[in-house]
């Protein structure tokens, strides 16, 4: 009897092991999340490499040959919602701003940062048109709306520090993006950080401060869940290689208008992106490199998140940033030196010959 059991067990192992190993080679579905949604909850994103990749369906094309489905999710609850999805193992890749990213890391969620999604973003402090507020200093004691837990909250704190203020000097009200616009339109709040031009063009708000200093903003990034990366490294490599290949299209100035129109599917006007990117090279804004600017910036974000008391724990950074997939992709696609690297201050380090 024992022998029979042993024979059956061996046979099952022999049959089962290769099967399970084969199953590990590729997932049935790749789940990609955006920490944003379009106007009124439209399933679209903008202003980053991953957004263009989504609109052009490049991952679907890449993975269709293996029967791997690609699922996209657009979280209205922004970065904090993506964190919950990660905690419940419901997402494999995502793009996220700095604050929710570092908070997640401090709370034990395991990710590997594989590329930048965008950098050098622009924002404006806006106030209702009839508001007496003229400067950042005038914001003291006023109702300022921001979606708490997002990168914008960290940007706000940097901005306030520059103006000699603290978040506690303001009455900060937590609202999602659509609610912020509604509250600004009716002047139920006194100010907000907005990048869109729609309220400005309707005459409902006016801009009092432009936020475009690389020291005030931080890059957004693309990560992969560590569990997925350990299980399917070859899929991660294909994902990054496909993204980098697509990025060449994204940063080609010939495609500027077409890309802005693709982003316009979020419901934000084309003119938003035209203005946002005016005077910027696409190749600088849509730069996937995990360069010195990125590493300095993430270290700064961690320090600031602690300083502003968004974090109570240390953030273990060892092995977090994983450039190997990006390096392999750049080498394979012969794109080494295609994008400029930036130093810790956000200044261009060197100009590549292939420009």
């Amino acid at each position: 009897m024992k022998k029979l059991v042993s024979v059956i067990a061996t046979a099952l192992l022999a049959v089962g092991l290769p099967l399970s190993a084969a199953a590990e080679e590729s997932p049935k579905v790749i789940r990609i999340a955006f920490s944003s949604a379009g106007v009124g909850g439209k399933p679209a994103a903008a202003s980053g490499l991953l957004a263009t990749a989504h609109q052009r369906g490049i991952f679907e094309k890449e993975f269709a040959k293996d029967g791997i489905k690609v699922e996209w999710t657009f979280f209205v609850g922004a970065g904090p919602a993506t964190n919950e999805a990660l905690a419940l193992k419901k997402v494999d890749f995502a793009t996220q701003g700095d604050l929710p990213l570092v908070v997640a890391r401090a709370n034990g969620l395991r990710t590997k940062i594989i590329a930048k999604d965008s950098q050098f973003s622009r924002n404006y402090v806006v106030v209702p048109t009839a508001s007496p507020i003229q400067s950042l200093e005038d914001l003291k004691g006023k109702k300022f709306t921001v979606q708490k837990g997002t990168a914008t909250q960290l940007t706000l704190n940097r901005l306030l520090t520059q103006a000699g203020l603290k978040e506690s000097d303001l009455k900060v009200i937590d609202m999602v993006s659509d609610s912020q616009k509604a509250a600004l339109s009716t002047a139920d709040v006194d100010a907000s950080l907005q990048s869109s031009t729609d309220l400005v063009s309707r005459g409902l708000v006016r801009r009092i401060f432009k936020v475009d200093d690389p020291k005030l903003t931080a890059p957004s990034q693309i990560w992969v869940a560590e569990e997925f990366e350990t299980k399917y490294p070859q899929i991660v490599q294909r994902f990054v290689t496909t993204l980098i290949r697509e990025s060449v299209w994204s940063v080609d100035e010939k495609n500027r208008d077409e890309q802005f129109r693709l982003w316009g599917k979020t419901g934000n006007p084309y003119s938003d992106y035209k203005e946002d990117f005016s005077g910027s090279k696409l190749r600088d804004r849509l730069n996937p490199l995990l360069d010195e600017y990125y590493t300095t910036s993430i270290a700064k974000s961690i320090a600031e998140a602690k300083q502003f008391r968004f974090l109570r724990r240390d953030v273990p950074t060892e092995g977090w940033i994983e450039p190997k997939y990006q390096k392999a992709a750049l080498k394979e696609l012969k794109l080494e030196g295609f994008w400029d690297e930036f130093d810790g201050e956000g200044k261009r380090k060197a100009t590549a010959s292939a420009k």
Partner: protein
Amino acid sequence: MKYPKKQIVTAIGAALLTLASSANAAPPTTEELLKQLSALRATVDALQKQVKEQADNLEKTRESIPQGAELATTQDVEGVRSQLEDHKYNTARDREYKTALSSRGLTIGGTLTGSYVTSTAPSASTSNNPQGKPAESGFGVGATLSFAGNLYKDYAEGKNLDYRVAFTYANPKLANNNSTNSPALGDTVTRLTDVYLQYSLLQNLGALEDPKLTATFGQQKIPFGLEGQVSDELKPTVSTAQFLGDSNLKNIGHRQIGLIFRGDLFPNADYGFNYRAPLFEYAFGVVNGNGENTTDDNTRKDYLGRVTFTVPADYNSWLRELKFGVSYYGGWKNLNSTGTNFPVQLDNARTIRKGFDISYNHNPIGITYERADGSEDDLQNPGSLTDRRTRRTKKTGQVLTVFYNFGDIAQWSKNLNRVGKFDDFWPTTSQVYYRYDTWDPNNYVNADRTIKQTIGYNLFFAETTKFQIGLTRTEYDRTLGKANSTDLTAQFQYGF
């Protein structure tokens, strides 16, 4: 300087006329001709400059137009304007004739339920079932309807005044919680369930770290334990625990009319996950004590209170949503001896309920345990016309529920089910559960317990739609003299 077209034509014409008229008169001197030529050249230069400026402007305009974009003509703009006017007219007309209006902000909601129940328990003989056997089975329907909204919106501090009115429809047996009413064929019951006003006493602007406190006046669920007040997030079963039954600890199983304060203290705000968990939650209030849709039946009021403690933990901690709660309900009731003249009348008989509960709601797993103890005064000799002595009965119910969610597991997450989408997509959540529910109607009597064990499956496949199926085995202790039975309940519930 810019020259309008008309002015330029006039200037050239005047110059030519001057030349022509001077041809008839004395011939101009060379000097005069040179002057005129010089004036003409200046005019032509200005014209060329203006044409160049206009060409440059046109080029700039072209550059600002996206590649491939088409320019709109005046007719196009007129067309859009006309469509806009049509749209404005239709919107105004539809609002006047085809839109339900209310004097205040209003959200209408409700559920429709279709169910099938079958049981091996022998049923009593009725005209529909003259044999009394075999097991009872049948289809059922139910519906709820609610109106809720805001009566005063405080934009500055969020101290809003809200209202809610809700109704339920069911067949009479279900509507009366299995009471022994004998309704006529075709009878239906529609009852008021919630009728209350709620005011936020503390600032409530959505900040996770702010404590909350509300006062609710009217007919409402009472804050006792878990079973009587939680949603399907913590209660996967179709039925509720036995101790809430009408003949058991009914005060806590019914809505009550009164004033109840609910609040929390020291909330743990984890903005990294948009997660809020107050360290303490509390509730206290005063109610009539004799249930819903009825006037007070005695001269005293009942008092209730509840405190919970949630283990402080971040969202990603395994301790997330581990909560302990204690509840108390102290009531009074009138006691009358049987007989025609009711000579024995007491108005100080006590009805005490005490509860303890633990819940661990850590998606995808969840465990709840609740114990409710009741003590009840009754006349020792209810048939006597003179004996005013009372005796106190103690009763205990306990219920343990374990559930596991799988699939998208987003049903109760305000983060995961708020996603950008074009259609009516909703993440699907499946849930399996097991429940162990005991009821001891008298702690001083041995072997009189009823034990119900249920296994079930729930499927949440749309925002407000679920399918539930549960198999319950009921076992009675020997002194109760009842045959054990098995029930199967299946129901669809559609919300709107």
